[in-house]
């Protein structure tokens, strides 16, 4: 009997392995990657079938991850060991590990999917990394503490915010030099990570201390307009098809929308407190507004200029992404081993199982969220 059970167990393991290896992970455009918040695993979810099709085991907990859209490469980091790992999705094996000279607390993939900018909002430091080559293109040792950096569409300039000096900075990747422009009235005011318009012409940053959002002409490097949003402005958000700039006040729940071409106000309303996550649907019409502080969500229609649906997720969101066709929003949760698939046009929510303990980070092969 024991032998029979042992054989059956072996058979089951073999079948499991067979199933695992049968999953084709070579096209990241069809996949979502969800890193467990506690265990050393990344679950791979097929966006079409909406089920986990593979599990990648990692050496260390994964703090952040990105998938290059046009090559089967998954890049994930571990802050404690300053480690960047490149996983070959086609061969389904760890291809390379690189120890960085700084802590990769923030990781941003550029528009083409070939370069990654690492920054650290605690100790500072910057590394521009080749996502395909797995090598450091260059590093800036004296780089100030900064949150997510921002690639311009030409991938020549990289913007960042420096709260210590109250400045917006710009790294010239050709010269490997940086310049800074002070935007806050006094140094030390907390600045959000920058965002930009689709064409990179305008760069936006929120001053979390004064409640202002500054708009810069990225070419002239001049703050030509500032918006007073509220006491706790979230990072500004620009819509995927370039129509709007969104500014949210987490304290009052104010939602301020400005049409980006003419900079004329489109919507100014109160929706709900804590909103700091946005995912936008096709035609820049439907918007899923969420918070990393509570579980409420709102579906805002840019044609009606009103909330058309609202509710609450089962848990508080960690982060959200939009599908490349703009029909679905994906929402990961820190305390739930599920990812929500939200139909942006119908408002329907489907929870898909992923991870064991909840998400620590997640990414999809290609999102419509390209410039925050």
């Amino acid at each position, binding site marked *: 009997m024991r032998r029979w059970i042992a054989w059956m167990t072996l058979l089951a393991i073999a079948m499991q392995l067979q199933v695992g290896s049968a999953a084709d992970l070579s*096209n990241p455009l069809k996949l979502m990657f969800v890193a467990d918040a506690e265990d050393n695993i990344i679950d791979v979810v097929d966006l079409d079938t909406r089920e986990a099709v593979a599990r990648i085991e990692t050496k260390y907990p994964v703090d952040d991850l990105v998938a290059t*859209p*046009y090559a089967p490469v998954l890049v994930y980091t571990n802050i404690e060991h300053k480690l960047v790992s490149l996983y070959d999705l086609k061969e389904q094996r760890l291809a390379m590990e690189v120890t960085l000279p700084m802590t990769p607390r923030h990781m941003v993939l550029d528009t083409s999917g070939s370069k990654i900018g690492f920054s650290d909002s605690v100790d500072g430091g910057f590394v521009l990394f080749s996502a395909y080559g797995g090598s450091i293109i260059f590093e800036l040792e004296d780089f100030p503490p900064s949150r997510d950096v921002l690639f311009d*569409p030409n991938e020549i300039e990289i913007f960042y915010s420096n709260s210590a000096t109250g400045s917006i900075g710009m790294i010239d990747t050709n010269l490997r030099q940086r*310049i800074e*422009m*002070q935007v806050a009235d006094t140094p030390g005011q907390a600045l959000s990570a920058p965002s930009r*318009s*689709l*064409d990179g012409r305008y760069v936006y940053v929120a001053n979390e201390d004064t409640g202002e959002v*500054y*708009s810069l*002409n990225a*070419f*002239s*490097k*001049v*703050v*030509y*307009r*500032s918006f007073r949003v509220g006491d706790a402005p979230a990072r500004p958000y620009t819509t995927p*098809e*370039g*129509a709007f700039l969104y500014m949210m006040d987490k304290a009052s729940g104010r939602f301020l929308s400005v*049409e980006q*071409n*003419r*900079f004329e106000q489109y919507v100014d309303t109160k929706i709900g407190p804590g909103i700091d996550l946005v995912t936008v649907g*096709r*035609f*820049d*019409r439907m918007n899923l507004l969420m918070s990393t502080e509570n579980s409420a969500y709102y579906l805002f229609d*840019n*044609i009606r200029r009103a909330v058309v649906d609202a509710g609450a997720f089962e848990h508080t969101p960690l982060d959200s992404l939009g599908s490349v*066709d703009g029909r679905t929003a994906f929402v990961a949760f820190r305390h739930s081993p599920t990812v929500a698939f939200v139909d942006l046009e119908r408002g329907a929510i489907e929870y898909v199982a992923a991870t064991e303990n909840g998400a620590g980070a997640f990414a999809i092969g290609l999102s419509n969220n390209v410039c925050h």
Partner: protein
Amino acid sequence: MSHGSHSPALHLPNPLKLGLLALAGVAIASSWLVFPYFVQGQQLLRGVGDESRMMKGETVAQYLTRELVKTPNLEITATFASDEYFQYVDRARIVGNLRPDRNMIFFVSETVHTGELPADPPHATLRVGEATYEPALADGPTNVEHHRLSVFSFPKLDANGDPIDFESAGRMRLYVSSPYLGSPSPITFAGGWDAPYSLPEELKSRADITPVAALALGAGLLSSVLTPCLLQLVVMFGGIIAGFSTVPGKEGIDVQRMTPIIRRKVMQIAFAFVLGFTLLYVLAGALIGAIGHQAQLVFAEYSRLVAVASGVIVILLGLWVGFRGTRELACRVPNRVEMHSLSIKDIAGTALASMGYALGCTACFGGAIVATLIVYVGAIGSAMIGASIMLTFAVGVAIPFLLAAFYISKMDSILSALARHARTLSYASMVVIIAFGLILITDNFHTVSDMIYPYLGLN
């Protein structure tokens, strides 16, 4: 190659050869796909957009500039560099902490043609109503000879920190003083701006796009945002050519008699197809040009409705092609006049199917067109500009389609196959056309493109 009308007997080639010939036709019809390989669409759009914005920037700068004095010896201009100025005008040399959101900024340009400018930059004051304000920042080069550009910044808050009401004063004047032309004492010149100080609507919505720029934008669109949608148009084109250009008949049809008719019909059908989608795209372009950003929301509002309506039209035409295939037209039609009148109905049906499908196409990617043109070019400004951009785009797609039709019309083997297998091809076409109608109705527009696209090596 010999023409069917001159050859004594037509023999069908083997299926492999026929398949290769047909494949060549498909390749020709799809040849617009070379655009993404050879033209960097996004860069082209960005380049044209930069050019257009530069022209607009010059217009805006001109509108905000006043000529304080213009003599043969001395020229002084002042530009009110408002927040809108910096929104539209790129000035690479003005890297600094100018804050037009908090200050009234003026650039003063001085030029002398004889002698030298005063060593120091001029003194400037701003008068609003009865109040006069001194600049918080005055900066310009010293000891220049003939030309100097200085900048003056006046806070929008008064000494008490209260906002200065520039608008209600109705007018503001900038006074510029310096000992010009060797004068022992300062000479003062003034320039005025009338409230409201914001740019007029006509200027804000205007886009400066030259005809060449419109051509480039059309090519840019073809190379970037629209190509996945158009892949399906090729399949649709093949279905319609096979379905409408044939003349169904019994087995043993007189192929030699039918081939010249089919040859003519292939070209007629191709022209009708091209005309249909060109007309539709030009109309869509005119709409986008006329209402700009609002078109994006119009597409968002009505895209499903339009897609369903287009799908119904396409399905009805598919059914017609199938129904048409059941009739014994070749035996019934006795002469070329009737053949010709028959083709007019087919041509109208083709144009309608093409328009219907292009309409569904536009409902799908219309928002992307609006976004692309607005993001890269700014406000489109006029129906004419929008229409001309989309005309260029449509012509870029149309030419390969017409070339493919011309190629087919010269291939006797294909024409013979069309004649011999008219009924089968009609049914096959019906299936293809109805399938695309269903794609429109079910909102699965990208399904076919997504299947084909990964194999083309395009991102």
